[in-house]
């Protein structure tokens, strides 16, 4: 592959990420505005989120990003077997993240906290907005985690016949982006109690 072609792929992936970032930005904008309009409600509501799950998931994604970076590192050295191992780690961590996320959603749903519904905080104006945004933002993020895992699996598969590390590198950039989004979701939904 020509250097020019590599450059083309890198630019394309970065553009796609910029576009995705703006997709999320709309929800971040709603969060920021509603938080400034209903700061007490958002405080109270954030306390309902399960903080150990949030913390664990943060660590999981940070670790997965690290694993991704290591996988790329080995792919470049030509040690494709090692790279595949680390990439598998990324996928496993992604699954773990989703499992915790799903568990937390189920806890919420049991407590009557659903999109548009605020459980015990039903009377507090603005609390249901918090939870709607919580579901929309973590839901959209979860979709990106799933997409990211599929990409990683695909790139991992490619390394079997192709020793070009480009695919895994590009997929890695995307995966890190998914991590960055979570880095912001975590304080917004768990830490601002």
């Amino acid at each position, binding site marked *: 592959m020509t250097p020019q072609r590599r*450059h083309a792929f*890198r*630019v394309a992936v*970065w*553009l796609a*990420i*910029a576009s995705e*970032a*703006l997709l999320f*930005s*709309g929800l*971040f*904008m709603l969060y*920021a*505005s509603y938080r*400034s*309009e209903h700061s007490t409600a958002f405080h109270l509501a954030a306390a309902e989120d399960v903080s150990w799950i949030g*913390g664990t998931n*943060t*660590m999981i994604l*940070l*670790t997965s*990003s*690290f694993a*991704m*970076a*290591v996988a790329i*590192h080995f792919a470049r050295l030509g040690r494709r077997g090692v790279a595949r191992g680390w990439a598998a780690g990324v996928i496993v961590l992604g699954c773990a993240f989703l499992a915790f996320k799903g568990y937390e959603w189920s806890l919420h749903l049991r407590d009557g906290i659903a999109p548009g519904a605020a459980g015990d905080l039903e009377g507090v104006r603005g609390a249901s907005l918090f939870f709607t945004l919580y579901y929309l933002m973590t839901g959209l993020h979860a979709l990106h985690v799933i997409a990211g895992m599929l990409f990683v699996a695909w790139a991992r598969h490619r390394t079997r016949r192709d020793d070009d590390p480009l695919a895994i590198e590009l997929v*890695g*950039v995307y995966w*890190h*982006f998914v*991590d*960055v989004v979570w*880095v*912001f979701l*975590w*304080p*917004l939904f768990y*830490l*601002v*109690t």
Partner: protein
Amino acid sequence: MRNLIVTFVALVVLATASWLLSSAGAPAWTSLLIAAAKALAIGWVFMELSEAHVVPRTIAVVAVLFIALLIGGTLVDVQLR
């Protein structure tokens, strides 16, 4: 490889610090500041912006600016009306 490990450790330390600070009742902007620092570290090292061509770097900066623009422009309205 060393870079990667150092970054990872730094990320974990920052995350822990953020968690401790918030349970100690620090204001919300501290954890957002830390989040920004983490995002920067991930972008610079893991996403390899440090070695990237100007084009990806420019794209990243422009995207961040536009996000700030959307949130800023609206927030100004919400606060001032």
